[in-house]
């Protein structure tokens, strides 16, 4: 016997465009679905219904008016009070919501697809067909996602919450980029366009001397023309102006900024400060030491990598817009003050993402680092995970500071830089293995990867660490032989396919040359070897967006349209697995997140389009409605 409770027509503000949609309108002409009519919210289990009624609980119809994000909150409050009131009579009853969907891609190998997902207590109770879920007792059927495609909440395995902090400044990038409000800032295709946007931003500042800061300039796209101080002087000669390069390693400034820093003078002899014909700095400051004297004058805070509260909030809103429910913040110094703030903010009832923040090896000895990370681990909570170490071993390929094996850089640039001595890496690996702490190691160049592998082999002989999941981050230039070793020592890789799109043409022609450019970020080799694989954006270096990153891994297309490494392309299915359960595995969270199956957190990416149906070419254009995180619903258009 079944008891159906008919409810009135539901409507809510939804969809990417924020247009008013009626549920019925959305559903028509949807495919036939098993179970009861879709515009009905159902509570089942007559026995429990009787218990509810006999306990004098609110009428069941009170539960079902899910017509906006606001009433959703009301719903949760209502649900909580309901639970309280029934606890007295039946302690094992909790509210179950079943969402119907056009399609659910589960990443559960035992049942890869589902039409419904049941959520209870912020976790997945079941994913399958509605009729299979009847045995779990009372539920509410929620059809708001009936026309959506659901995936496990996307996992960004390597980003920085600094992406949220940077939106404080003027976006000056060459490519279109979405801000935390969902506004897409068009890419700036000429120096004039850069000047125009900065001039508009300057007009909004009150004081004529207030500094103006921008970010994400990519000088390689302006026909070999460097941006100099004379360009930026067109915006203002009164206020200091500084524009951070996309790589984060160059700061372009105007004349006023140089004057304030006392550097508008002849006779400067520094490799990071090019001079003009008159012997004065051009305004291009390369490298942290050359940038530092200008930073304070141009409005950049001293330490951009330090996590700030508004930035952490903005970052989470970007997560919702890109379908991300868990993001790794890969290189934080995590001082106590920042940790206190992160603990507080991520515990707020409406904070929509889980942040995994790694403690970077810096300022402590390896022994102190282990103690510190064990301490941090104790402060982990549902939406803030601490207790992993990050080591930065070398520099970047486009900055020619990555450590490459023979024959080195294609353009003959000198060998790159070590940021950590091999002895320290070795000691960290040994101590971390002994203490059961996971280590993620940044290795851009293949020599850095080689060193990490050597250290890993030595360390494992001393401290066998089953399931250590030490992960090589970027690992961009590893060759097949290295992947075989990576497999043998049980490491994971988190590759950086976004590089192909943004800098692939430069890698082909300048940095590493054709052969190695085509093997960069060898996703197919990693999968073939059985190496656990994640892929990442390194936001803010490239924009946060796992579906875009997946597109890069599937197509390996450069900005100019070249397919860079046809044989290292991976399938859409593999790419989607990689941005969910694959990335979760590298964070040791695959038992909690990364798939839609019983027991996992109720983390879902809610998509307007089916990423498996749009074709690999269009993967980056899949529209994101929002997310469900821990059972809480976050609509991008309303966040």
């Amino acid at each position, binding site marked *: 016997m079944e008891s159906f409770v008919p409810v009135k027509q539901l409507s809510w503000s939804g969809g990417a465009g924020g247009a008013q949609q009626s549920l019925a309108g959305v559903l028509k002409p949807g495919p036939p679905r098993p179970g009861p009519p879709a515009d009905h919210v159902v509570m089942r289990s007559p026995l429990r219904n009787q218990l509810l009624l006999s306990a004098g609980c609110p009428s069941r119809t009170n539960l079902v008016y899910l017509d906006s994000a606001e009433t959703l909150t009301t719903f949760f409050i209502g649900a909580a009070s309901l639970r309280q009131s029934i606890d007295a009579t039946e302690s094992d009853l909790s509210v179950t919501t079943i969402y119907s969907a056009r399609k659910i891609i589960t990443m559960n190998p035992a049942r890869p697809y589902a039409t419904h997902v049941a959520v209870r207590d912020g976790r997945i109770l079941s994913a399958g067909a509605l009729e299979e879920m009847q045995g779990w007792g009372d539920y509410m059927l929620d059809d708001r996602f009936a026309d959506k495609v659901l995936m496990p909440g996307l996992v960004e395995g390597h980003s920085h919450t600094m992406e949220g902090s940077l939106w404080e400044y003027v976006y000056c990038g060459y490519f279109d980029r979405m801000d935390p409000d969902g506004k897409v800032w068009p890419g700036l295709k000429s120096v004039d366009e850069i000047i125009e946007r900065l001039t508009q931003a300057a007009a909004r500042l009150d004081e004529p001397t207030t500094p103006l800061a921008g970010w994400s300039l990519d000088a390689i796209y302006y026909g070999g023309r460097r941006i100099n101080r004379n360009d930026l002087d067109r915006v203002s000669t009164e206020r200091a102006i500084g524009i951070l390069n996309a790589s984060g390693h160059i700061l372009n400034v105007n004349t006023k900024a140089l004057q304030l820093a*006392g*550097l508008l003078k002849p006779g*400067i*002899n*520094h*490799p*990071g*400060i090019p001079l003009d014909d008159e012997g004065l700095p051009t305004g291009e400051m390369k490298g*942290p*030491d*050359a940038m*530092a*004297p200008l930073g*304070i004058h141009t409005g950049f805070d*001293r*330490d951009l990598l330090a996590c700030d509260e508004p930035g952490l909030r903005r970052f989470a809103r970007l997560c919702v817009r890109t379908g991300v429910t868990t993001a790794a913040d890969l290189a934080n110094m995590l001082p106590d003050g920042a940790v206190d703030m992160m603990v507080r903010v991520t515990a707020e009832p409406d904070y929509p993402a889980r942040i995994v923040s790694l403690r970077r090896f*810096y*300022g*402590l*000895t390896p022994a*102190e680092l282990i103690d510190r990370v064990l301490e941090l681990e104790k402060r982990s909570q549902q939406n803030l995970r601490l207790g992993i170490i990050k080591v930065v071993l070398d520099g970047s390929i486009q900055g020619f500071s990555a*450590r490459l094996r023979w024959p080195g850089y294609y353009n003959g640039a000198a*060998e790159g*830089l*070590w*940021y*950590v*001595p*091999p*002895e*320290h890496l070795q000691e960290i690996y040994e101590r971390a293995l002994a203490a059961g702490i996971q280590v993620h190691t940044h290795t851009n160049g293949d*020599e850095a990867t080689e*060193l990490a592998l050597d250290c890993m082999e030595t360390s494992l002989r001393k401290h066998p660490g089953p399931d250590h999941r030490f992960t090589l981050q970027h690992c961009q230039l590893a060759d097949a032989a290295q992947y075989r070793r990576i497999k043998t020592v049980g490491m994971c890789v988190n590759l950086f396919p976004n590089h192909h799109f943004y800098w692939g043409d430069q890698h082909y022609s300048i940095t590493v040359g054709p052969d190695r450019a085509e093997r960069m970020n060898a996703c197919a080799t990693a999968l073939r070897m059985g190496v656990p694989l994640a892929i990442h954006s390194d936001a803010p270096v490239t924009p946060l967006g796992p579906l875009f990153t997946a597109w890069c891994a599937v197509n390996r297309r450069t900005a100019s349209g070249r397919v860079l490494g046809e044989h290292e392309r991976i399938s859409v299915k593999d790419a989607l697995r990689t941005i969910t359960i694959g990335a979760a595995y590298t964070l040791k969270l695959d038992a909690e997140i990364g798939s839609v199956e019983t027991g996992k957190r109720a983390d879902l990416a809610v998509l307007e389009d089916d990423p498996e149906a749009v074709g690999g070419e269009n993967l980056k254009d899949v529209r994101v409605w929002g997310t469900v995180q821990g059972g809480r619903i976050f609509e991008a258009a309303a966040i």
Partner: protein
Amino acid sequence: MPLPITIIGGYLGAGKTTLVNHLLRHANGRRLAVMVNEFGALPIDEDLIEAEDDQIISLAGGCVCCSYGEDLVSSMAMLATLRPRPDMVLLEASGVSFPGAIAGTVGLVPTYKLDGVVVLADGETIRAQAADKYIGGTIRGQLAQADMVLLNKTDLIEDDDIVRRWLNGTSGEARIVRSMYARVPFDVVFGTIWRDGKHGVEVADRYHADGYETLAFVTAPGVRPDQAVTVCADATTGLLRAKGFVPRPEGGLAQIQVVGRRGEIADAPAGAEPGVVCIGLADQINRAALAVLADDRNSITERQAS
């Protein structure tokens, strides 16, 4: 007066920490400010530490220590504002960094002046390190950027001549100073041999027992400042440091300073008197080469006799 800064480089285990402590113990009233890369492994002996706060550690004898981390420029600027002002700064580079790159950055901070780059080498392991497949290039690069190489732990090697010859081929023009436990005179690291712009001829030959020798002379008429620098900085002269005041052909005095292979000329402060003071290893100073500069050649040969 610009604040002189000496950069100490060298790989892990070369003896940088030992050197820092040795210098702090021999500062002899001079306020030495030590900048370390990071506080993690604080390279200061505990008995020297008087007080700690977030930014600065106060040390015995008016010395201080601070960590510069990833913001060298700001830390240098902060140190220069301390009152009382430090007399000189010692910057300890991290084991994998290139002291030459740091030297370039020093020029970006007003009120500072690079004094010299001293790179330590572990006499026992330096050749193996320089051949290492991972760090070899870094080690060789550090040595090539040195004004002076401190070949340390010579007590652990049987024949340091072999290492010295090898170093000569690797570090170019840099002077090589042998040491045990990084015991090297303060004046060699900092060029403080000449003080207050006063005539230095009476400088005591106080390092003689350690194998060092100091010389002082007044330049002969017609010797230009650039000639004096060229001779003093020439490897065959065998000096580690020279400092003093030499008349300019057009009138007035120039200040010359030589650290190993590095030499420079600046305006002399008011009240300076002509004269040059040098320090070198007793068995390496080439007096004949220096004699061409001296007004009274006997002053040099006489000192040799003493």
